[in-house]
């Protein structure tokens, strides 16, 4: 499943680039996410909680930075996640690209998501919606981290 999300952050591309590459700093901005361990400079362990009404999912994720191209302002993360109660899991590559946009920065995120198990069966239809909501929240959190108000999300 391919998901495309974008949002604007009221900060310069340089600022946003630095933040996005600081994984321990960026993870807490993702709704429900928690950094558990810095394995090395390009590998992390994190936990991600998703709550949809009474359905609370918790993913244990291995995150690896596959590429980081400062000149193109493009990063690629690979994530392998396992739902801790056996409800399946997911692998994803997340490619983020930054572009200047007026006074701020446009962040484009393309996610190639492969789910399996129960989350694949029951979650497929709702993932785009939920992902959209999470990205909106993420954008707001990022903006707050950068000491600014949230920018418009799309």
């Amino acid at each position, binding site marked *: 499943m391919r998901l495309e999300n974008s949002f604007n952050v009221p900060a310069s591309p340089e600022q946003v680039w630095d933040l996005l590459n600081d994984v321990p700093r960026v993870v807490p901005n993702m709704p429900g996410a928690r950094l558990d361990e810095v394995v090395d400079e390009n590998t992390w362990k994190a936990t991600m909680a998703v709550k949809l009404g*009474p359905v*609370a999912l918790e993913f244990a994720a291995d995150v690896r930075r596959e590429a980081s191209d400062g000149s193109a302002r493009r990063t690629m993360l690979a994530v392998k996640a396992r739902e801790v*109660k056996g409800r399946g899991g997911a692998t994803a590559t997340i490619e983020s690209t930054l572009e200047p946009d007026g006074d701020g920065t446009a962040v484009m995120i393309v996610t190639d998501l492969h789910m399996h198990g129960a989350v694949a069966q029951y979650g497929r239809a709702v993932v785009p919606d939920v992902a959209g909501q999470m990205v909106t929240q993420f954008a707001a959190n990022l903006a707050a981290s950068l000491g600014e108000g949230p920018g418009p999300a799309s």
Partner: protein
Amino acid sequence: MKPPAFRYLAPHTLEEALALRAEHAGDSAVLAGGQSLMPLLNLRMAFPGTLIDVGRVSELAGIREWDGGVAIGAMTRQRAAERSKLIGERAPLVAKALPSIGHPAIRNRGTIGGSIAHADPAAELPAVALALDAELVAASSSGERTIPASDFFAGYLTTSLAPDELLVEIRLPSLPDGHGSAFVELARRHGDFALVGVGAAVALDAAGAIADARLVFIGVGGAPVRAHEAEALLRGATPTDEVYAEAAERARDEIDPGSDSHASGAYRRRIAGVLAQRALREATP
């Protein structure tokens, strides 16, 4: 397919229920009729630490007149609501929608408040609440607040209820006397969640023009969608097939349905238009 272990608490009064809700705010689920929660437990999709069964809180059930409309206690069983004369008179759209929910055995246990608080985007009652500008009364141990339906549904299975709050009453303002209503669905199979469903209400003025129109969709996104622009287009217009076709066209642009294994988003959008016209025609008094 057996439920995971949980702590079970069964308060007998609202006060007790709210205290427990506050105490276990981080990790509790509310068991109302159980017709949505129990499958999630059996499927082990939900692992609540505590289950607060509000089934024995008798003050939560009941149907009463309210400000010209009707107020329905959250624990009122759907089957009781289906048979309520008051609801039939004051909120006929509710009466029209109720028979589409599952099957009698489901409605015997399922509750009005439970369905609304569960906020399944394919469920009928959240949409009806939205269409009728329901006021949803949320209580917590620190007091009560009223949430307009338009602020209540936040996304898939997600509402603006706080973790320590309980939905206690659904207040439905009345539409003008003599208005008509309809709930039309397309489901793959009888009793299933609809691929698309449309609730409509139409009131005419003395001259026969549309005085008030409500149009709401289910199954077209993460939450029920009210077609405000289509409603605006209808207000003041004459209820003809052409006007309804135009309103349906407008409504189709107000929704953005997704795809799943039963139908694509494009099909859902198209059917939404077809059903909207059918619902409006049927709702026309």
